[in-house]
Each structure stands twice: as C-alpha cells, then as structure tokens.
C-alpha cells in the first residue's frame, strides 16, 4: 500500500543536489550549492566515536574533541573560537558513539577561513597540544559530566540503559561522556596516539553547503587540506554484533533522590540504514511521539498515570539501534501499573499494526523533522557527512524522507512484533528515596552526544 503523503513535491530534498570529490590523501569532499542566504556551512566528520575507545579509556574521543579547540600550528590557544566568532561565524564539535563532528557556519565571504582552520588542526594539532591544555580540558569535561548527567535527576539513566542493552565488553556498553575514573586516567600520550590513529584525511568527510562557488571551494580545499599526509593506522572498531533481541527482560531498580517514580526502558532495534530501522522509527512515533501517540493517550490522557510518556530512537549502524521509552509517573502511581499499560499497548500494536490515520500522522511528523534538518545549511552539511561516513553515499541524505514514506503499515507492525516486547527490554525503574524533591528531566537526544561548548 503506497503511503505517499508528501508535503513537498521533492519529498523533502527541496531540490538539493550534492557533488562528491576525493583528494589524493583520501579526504572525501561533498559540496552542495544554495544561494538563498549568504552563508556557508563547513562540516567535518571523523569516523571515530566512543565505540572505538578501549576499556579504561572511556570518554577519550570526547575529551579529544575538546583538545581540537586548543590550538594547532598556526592557531594559538583559543584561536579557533576567536577567529570564527570574530568573522561572524558560529562553531562547535560533538562526539557520539559512531563519529566525531566539527562544524562552522560562516557568512559566505568568510568560508575560506573555516577551511584553513580545519585543515590546520587536521594536519598539525600535535605541535600545539600540551599538558596544560590536557589538564584544563580534563577539568572542563569532568564539569560537563557533572552538569549534564551527575547533578541532574535521572541524569545517568541513559548511561545505565546503554550499559544494560549492550553487554560488558561491547563497544557501545559505555556512553561518549565516559567515566570520571577513565577521564582522570587519560594521558597526553593517549591523546597523541588517538590523533595519530584516527585524525587522518582518509578517515574524514568534509562537506561544504550554502552560498558557495564549487570550483573555487574545491580549489581552497585542495590548497589547505591537499598536503596533509595520508596515514592509515586506524583499527576497525570492536565487533558490535549482537543478537537482534536481548532474549530476556533485564531489570534494574534505582533508588535515588528523584522527584517522581519513573519507568525507562531500552529496546534493541534494527540497524540504521535498513527499511526495518525506518519502520521502527514510524512504530515509535505512533506509539510514543507527540500528543496523539498511543502511549500519551493511554498514560497521560486516559489513565492519568504519567506526567509525560514518550519514545525516542537512537539510530546506530555498528550495533542494534536503541529505542528509548521514558515515562515519568504521576504522584502516587506505582510503576507496575504503568508497565502493565505499556505492555498492553505494545502487544496490541504488535498484533494490529498502525491505523491508516496513525501511519499518515507518523509519516507527516517524520517528514517535518526532516524538513527542519534541511532548513539550515549546517543541518544539510551534517546530513551529507552522516550518510557519507556511515553508509558511503552522501546522496542518500537527499532521499531519506522518501524511504520513510515508502514504508508500509505491515512493516511497522512486523518490527513492533519482532522487537517491542518484554524479552527485548532493559527496564530501569526509579524509586525516589526521599519524599522531598531532588531534581529534573533528561531526554535521549541530550545524552547521546556531547559537545565542546554549551
């Protein structure tokens, strides 16, 4: 049954095109023109994330990302931030399980500066990296961990769920922020070795999107990046293969000073890049995305047992994706009552599948989310890098929404039946330890990546 309820003629790609190039040193380049606004986005994805970290050095990829802003051969100290901001640009970097990205959005006439800066640190970071930067950024990152996770109620829920869904020793067992002990243990030599291993032109994709002249942009890229020597010391990440389902319900009860009871759960879902992953995205949207979702209607509207109830999806390529359920209980409600209602809704959905109306709503929501990501040059640059790094083909970014719209209700039902059941669930139950309040909310989107500047 075709479900082509597209909001735009181009089904989300907005008439975008992208060209691909490769320098002799292996750097892949993606360019996309758009002259509507005089801005240009530079995005650089390195194919390294927390999954490449080894035991005892969790958090190193993210700590290293911070060090990338501490200067390189021709850029002193905080110069990267100072020069970009002084040029009227904005910038940041983020680290997730599967990649590290760096991005600058510039007024179009300042594009060359951003390319020069990225090339300088790709080619010469270690000439500037010293013990002082390392110690300082170690403290900054530890404070980032405290601020975003440790000093926030439920702040470590995502870390706990990840640790349950991916067993000890698995590359996705730990989250990008890492542990305090490992952050303390990381040495300057670890950082140097990390750079030598992963920060190679052949392990990166550079995209430039916006008000650009592609020929001139490519010439600048060749000029600044072309002489960076190729090197190939990268080890493949540890194998992330896991059974499709957990095979039993895993369960942990957390007794902490939190404001209310909560039920959180992680489900193993299909790998990103498959039709099944898009089907799972639609299933989670029907069940727990927005105010017309089944779980919202059941728990928040009808049963009035929850303050908020929703599902999030963390798409992963090198391991099963993660569906994250988050339900904060209303006062006086017991978790088993919520759990029974959730199981009831999931089982019914697995049996019946989505209604045509639900399918239409979910596809419309995902389409708008996609249009939002494409509404900015930086969003487009990031998506082009994502598909180039993770799937080897940036063009897939331009057709992603069409793939979501091509999914059938039966595929959505089937993935729910296969994956959204208690034997594929890691459940985390929060029981408040004190009657008085402690602190508040966290979402899947917050916890899955960490960045340099808040």
């Amino acid at each position, binding site marked *: 049954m075709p479900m082509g309820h597209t*909001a*735009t003629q181009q089904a989300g790609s*907005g008439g975008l095109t992208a060209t691909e190039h490769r320098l002799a040193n292996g750097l892949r380049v993606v360019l996309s023109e758009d002259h509507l*606004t*005089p*801005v240009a986005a530079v995005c650089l994805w390195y194919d390294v994330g927390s999954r490449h970290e080894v035991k005892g050095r969790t958090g190193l990829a993210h700590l290293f990302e911070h060090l990338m802003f501490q200067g390189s*051969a*021709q850029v002193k100290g*905080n110069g990267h931030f100072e020069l970009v901001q*002084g*040029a*009227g640009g904005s910038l940041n970097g983020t680290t997730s399980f599967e990649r590290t990205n760096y991005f600058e959005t510039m*007024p179009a*006439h*300042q594009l060359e*500066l951003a390319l*020069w800066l990225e090339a300088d640190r790709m*080619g*010469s970071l*270690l*000439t500037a990296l010293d013990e002082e930067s390392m110690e*300082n*950024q170690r*403290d*900054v990152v530890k*404070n980032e961990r*405290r*601020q*975003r996770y440790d*000093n*926030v*109620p439920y702040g470590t829920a995502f870390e706990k769920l990840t640790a349950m869904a991916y067993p000890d020793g698995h590359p996705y067992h730990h989250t990008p922020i890492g542990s305090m002990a490992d952050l303390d243990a990381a040495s300057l030599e670890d950082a*140097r070795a990390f*750079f030598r291993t992963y920060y190679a032109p052949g392990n990166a994709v550079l995209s430039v999107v916006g*008000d650009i002249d592609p020929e001139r942009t490519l010439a600048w890229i060749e000029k*600044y990046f072309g*002489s960076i*020597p190729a*090197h190939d010391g990268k080890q493949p990440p540890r194998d992330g293969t896991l059974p499709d389902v957990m095979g039993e319900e895993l369960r942990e009860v957390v007794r902490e000073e939190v404001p*209310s009871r909560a039920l959180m759960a992680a489900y193993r879902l299909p790998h990103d890049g498959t039709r099944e992953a898009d089907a799972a995205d639609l299933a989670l949207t029907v069940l727990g995305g927005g*105010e*017309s979702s089944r779980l919202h209607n059941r728990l928040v509207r009808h049963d*009035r047992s929850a*303050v908020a109830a929703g599902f999030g999806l963390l798409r992963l390529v090198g391991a099963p994706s993660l569906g994250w359920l988050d339900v*904060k209980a*209303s*006062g006086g409600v017991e978790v088993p009552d919520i759990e029974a209602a959730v199981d009831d809704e999931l089982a019914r959905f697995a049996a019946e599948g989505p209604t045509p109306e639900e399918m239409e709503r979910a596809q*419309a*929501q995902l*389409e*708008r989310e996609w*249009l*939002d990501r494409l*509404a*900015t*040059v930086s969003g487009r640059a990031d998506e082009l890098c994502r598909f180039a790094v993770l799937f080897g083909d940036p063009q897939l970014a331009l057709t992603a929404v069409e793939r979501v719209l091509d999914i059938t209700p039966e595929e959505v039902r089937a993935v729910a039946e296969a994956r959204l059941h208690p034997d594929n669930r890691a459940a985390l139950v929060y029981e408040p330890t004190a009657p008085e*309040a402690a602190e*508040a*909310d966290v979402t899947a989107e917050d916890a899955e990546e960490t960045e340099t*500047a808040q």
Partner: protein
Amino acid sequence: MSDAAATMTFHPQPQPGPATPWAFPAPERGQLPNGLTVLRCHRPGQQVVAVEINLDAPLEAEPAGLDGVSTIMARALSEGTDKLTAEEFAAELERCGATLDAHADHPGVRISLEVPASRLVKALGLLADALRAPAFPDGEVERLVRNRLDEIPHELANPARRAAMALSAQLFPADSRMSRPRQGTEESVERIDAAAVRAFYEAHVRPVTTTAVVVGDFTGVDLDAALADTLGAWTGSPAAPRQAPPITADDKGRVVIVDRPGAVQTQLLIGRIGADRHDRVWPAQVLGTYCLGGTLTSRLDRVLREEKGYTYGVRAFGQVLRSTPDGTGAAMLAISGSVDTASTGPALDDLWTVLRTLAAEGLTDAERDVAVQNLVGVAPLKYETAAAVAGTLADQVEQHLPDDFQAHLYERLAATGTVEATAAAVSAFPVDRLVTILVGDAAQIEEPVKALGIGEVTVVTG
C-alpha cells in the same frame, strides 16, 4: 605528530572576500477586518512555515491566588474546539506534520505553530479554531491541572530552574507577579478549574489585541484567503487599554544558598534588573554583556573555564522581562553557570575579580571589535529559519518595538564604541548590587562564600 606537521604545507591565514549585503527581513504589516494584526514575511526556500501568535494576556492579569491560570489556559487552547475533541485536535494537527506550543509569560501568551507550507492552510484553520472557539472541557482542564501539579516537583528539583525561582523571589516585592513562578505554585494551581480558565480567556483573549506573525516560503499559498478564512473568522469585543505597573527590584548585594546536601556542583545565578530594549543603552549593554560572558572566549570563561577548568561554561545575558515605551519595563541581567562544589568559593572569587577588573580597566578596543563583528556578522546565520525570524518579530510586537528594530539594532551595535560598551557593562553588573543564588551543598560552600565578603549569606532548604 610532528612528522605530519613537518610535511604539511602551511599557508597564511586567508582574508575574507567581499561581504554580501544582508538585512534583517522587513515584514509586511496589516490588519484583518476583525482587528487582528498580521505581520507576514516571505522567506524563499523555508518550507517549514512558522506562525507566532501574541495574545495580550500578561501574567499580572491573572486573578489573585490563581497564579498559573494563564499557563493552563494556554495549554487548554489545544484541548478541543467547537468542532473537535481534544484527542481529535491533537491528531489533526499532527496529521499536518505540525507542532504547536503555547506558553504564558509576563508580557503575554505566545503560541508557536510550525508546519510544512503545503499544509499551512489546514493548520491555520486548527489554530484559528483553538483561539476562536476553545472548548475548555472540565475533564481536560482538570487533567491539565493535575499534570501541572505533577510537573512542579520536577522543576523544583532542577538546579537551574530552582535558582531562577529563588532569584525572582529575592529581587521582586512579594506583591509583584514577577516574584512568583510563571506557571504558578502547587497552592495556586490547585485552585484552577475550567471556569477560571474560561473567565481568563473571556477577559483577555480577543482578535483586536492579538498579533499573528507568519514567516516562510509562501510560493503557491494564497495567504490572504487563508487568513481571511481562519483567523479572520474570529470575532470579539473591543479591549480597554492596559496599564503595566512599573517593575522594581531590590538588588542589594547578598547571597542565598539553596541547600542541596551532597550536590556535586553548585548552580550559580547572579542577577539584578536593568535596561530593556526601549532604553538607548540597549546596544551598548548587549555588546558589554557579550564581552563579559557571551561565549567561551569572553572574559568569564577565559578565566573560569579555559584557565581554571571550574566549569563547563558561564554565561552573562540580558533577558527582557517586559518592555514598554513608557520606560517602566526591565530586563533580567544575570550571570549563570555551574561549578564543581569544591571550586565554588574560588570560582566566585575569580568571577568578582573579573567584574572588578572590568570596572577598573574597561574593555579593550580589540574585544569590542570582535564582539561587534560576531554580533552583527552572525545575523544571516541566526535568521536562516522561518522560526527564528518569526520569533524575533513576535518579540518586537510583544515589547511594543517598531518592526524594524532588529534591522536597526545591527547599525546601532556597529556604531557603539568601547567606552560606551564598558560603561554599559559596568552599570549592568555593579559588584555591590548583585543578588547571588547558589543551589548547592551548603555544608561545603557556605564558609568559603562568606569569606568572600560579597554580601550577607542566607541558607534556605532546597
């Protein structure tokens, strides 16, 4: 990797090319026959259209003892109409691929709709029904009240929100609405019912005091017809002019610790009130505040983050509370961030040193130049999306500013010198007129903070 550095060819830092002129978009202003004001702005390529609605329903208009009724009303607007039940309304909205958010703040209620342009007309119809004929069913309002009561403990538990509530309670007189939480307290929310919500709606929501800002790519959309059929079909009575009470605050230097035994960090919020956008000093204040704490290369983070590692980041900002042409408005001027518990005393000591040094030595020309280049230069980036443009236009309406305020602000920033920016920053953050809220472990931080001599220290329970 010195071997790689040695073999890479270095080039001098490139110089910028000629800048392409860019101006903040000028909206087209008009009025529907029912008195509703419309600002529209065509932004080619922006396929997700943003609609911002301003309702002239300020928090101070809430009846005594019913703090939070405006919030519940704002939420209840999307809980059913004369045509659809609450569930049907939510479903129809999401069928458009739309999102709808409503919140109540001091100047009024704001409703934000975002929807793909191809479904704008349908979504505008739903939005208009919500404004024109909200059902406010007893059961749904009661559910929203219970839900709101359940949210309160989560907010109190959040260190940043707890700090903001404590600062408002300290700064403003108890009889000012600004001293109390925007979304009400447990006690006041308990009293709210459907009748109270409807009474607030009847008293304060009408087309003649409403503005709709519509921004996006209108290619193929007959916006005039769409507006006439939707928001234009809303009728209502005229309104009496509203008089806003002046905002006053007690900014005598003092410290309040909201005790959180065992907290691994201390949340800092240091603030007072100052000039709003109607004041001539605004551009200089924006510039000076940016130099003090706008980004991680500003003065505060240069020391607290990049030198000392006490924090992930501390920011200084000015946030308009209410802004009126008669000069009775104000902005909250504040410094906010969190530091690890053991560094609380040293971090505050450094923070005060930064403020004293600023007052003694002023900003440098280089700092001012970089700040202007950033604040002016980022405008085309910042306003790429329809939502960003709509938000700023709606802020201007809410603050009784001309539609070209933002466009001219960039010229005024560029014309502001180092001396003016310094003066504005120093008078915005005088070291002896700042109220400091610390949400953290009192047993560990009280003594080090007392030793700093930045004001009397009081401890309250979390």
